[in-house]
């Protein structure tokens, strides 16, 4: 089984156990993808985790963009901006860095 910083991840790099998450893990995952986490990245990651804590599910992309607009300003509350932060998709790559399960389906 693959791991990152000694914790188990699945074949696509998502944490097996949400409880294993730490900021160091997010940093290590981002480094693997050649991304240096900025304050804006952390806003997204933190919101994903907060929403998941409440609903046991990742927020819909529209909910995420609105939340980011509130936190970082209207010019950043859109999916183009979020894709610039997370080139593999704010939902998928964002959830991975946040230690959440991968959203799958017809998405």
């Amino acid at each position, binding site marked *: 089984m693959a791991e990152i910083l000694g914790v188990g991840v699945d074949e696509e790099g998502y944490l097996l156990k949400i409880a294993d998450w730490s900021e160091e893990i997010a940093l290590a995952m981002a480094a693997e993808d050649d991304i240096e986490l900025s304050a804006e990245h952390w806003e997204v990651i933190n919101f994903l985790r907060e929403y998941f804590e409440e609903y046991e*599910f990742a927020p819909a992309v*529209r909910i995420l963009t609105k939340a980011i607009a509130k936190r970082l300003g209207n010019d950043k509350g859109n999916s183009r901006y979020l894709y610039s932060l997370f080139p593999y998709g704010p939902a998928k790559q964002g959830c991975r860095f946040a230690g959440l399960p991968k959203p*799958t*389906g*017809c998405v």
Partner: protein
Amino acid sequence: MAELEIDKLPTYLEIPAIQKDSMAGDGPFKASAEIQEQLGFPGEKVENWQQIAIEKMAETTSKYRSVQVFLDACVKCGACTDKCHYYLGTADPKNMPVARQDLFRSVYRRHFTFAGKYFPKLVGAKELDDAMLDDWYNYFHQCSQCRRCAVFCPYGIDTAEISMAAREVMNVIGVGQKYSNQILGRINKIGNNLGMPEPALRDTLLDLEEEIEKETGVAVKLPLDNKHAEILMVTPSADFFAEPHIDGLIGYAKVFHQSGVTWTMSSYASEAANFGMFIGSYEVMRKGALRIRKAALDLGVSRIVVGECGHAWRVAYSFWNTLSGIGGGASDEYALKLQKQLDSNYPQPQHIIEFTYDLIQKGILTFDKTKNDHRKVTFHDSCNVARGSNMGDIENGQFILPREVIKAACNHFVDMPKATIKASTYCCGGGGGLLTDDLIELRIKGAMPRMQALKQSQENDGVNTLAAICAICKSQFSKVLPNYDFDPYMIVSVHQLVSDALVLSDKSETKAEDSL
């Protein structure tokens, strides 16, 4: 993830010279024991897998006579060879439809035909050994079950059905695909492919209601579990979660609002998609259909409308009647109860495109088409709608109605080259359970024929918007468009175009139409 080398789009689509084994490999991730067992399949490859597989093939070929006919009828004429988007995009000869079928056919011949039993080498009969199983797993997960090859086959051989049969055989011996089977586990447990629980769904819908009211000033509702509604709307759960899908959902809501008909979605059956078809399992497919039946019975609705989802519409239009009694066919107690409950004055089930088209015909919807004047729109026919269903109960209605809905909302519409649309449409490259990141190379390469046609329309007609009525197509295009130098935001839902141009009226001021 390593960057893929993607060739630039050719000016003309050429049939590639074969590149043997260019897509050889292990196939997509396999399902874990937990995922397999949730669906009633063995958790791991069973010990006597060959015997079980051959027994399953015997059952499949006798139960589905079409499969046996397809296996017997091929004369190797070669008409299908250049019709598969995966062959055109990858040049791997095993992605020629006949070669894909032959993986299954050669084993069928070995075990179920006289010549194959006694003179296997003469008739290309082969044993189902480890190498063959590996090829099955790899290449039957390089088929999106789009059925384009079947249109060109003089015998009408449908590779999709063979691919479904092969996947089912693999599942019963404990070899399943992670992506499809994990999704099926979620729909059985939570009610939708995403695994989105009811509170998250409710919150998302409320948020959308606020958004629409803020933007339009009109209180358009997205009701959930409303027991007094006439219509149950089932739509792919991607419509709740992803972009650009969600703007299509907003479009449905606006259309329902204008129609004056009461509607609801269900938190128990919050999914129209049914991956049971992709894995060829009647039982799993039926389970998904029965969730929708239960929701319809519990909510007491008189109509069922299906959202923009390609294979969902094939399942609904072609199979729901016998699977669950929606439309008549099944004869168990609950099916009969539902048939009595549903209003026979309307098509059951009805596609949202049919619903909107009907309102347009009756002059109930008003559009400000100039709202879409910045768009030059083309339409991608999704394979399961194009080649597996109909709309409007008129010949070729599944091609006519979506285009008419677009034209009612947009001033600028143009079709892509005619060899690539309607019954000859190219798959988006992500259908049939292949919309997963572990198949990204296949998805990008398989999208090439559609992208090439789009490029031609962009250059010749200035097309800047690609509309579709399938959640898979929308997600697939968002992902692959940039690989071919297109804007990923050019893909939209047909009902997003409707949404942007529809003139809303405040329901408190106008009286709902009684006749609807």
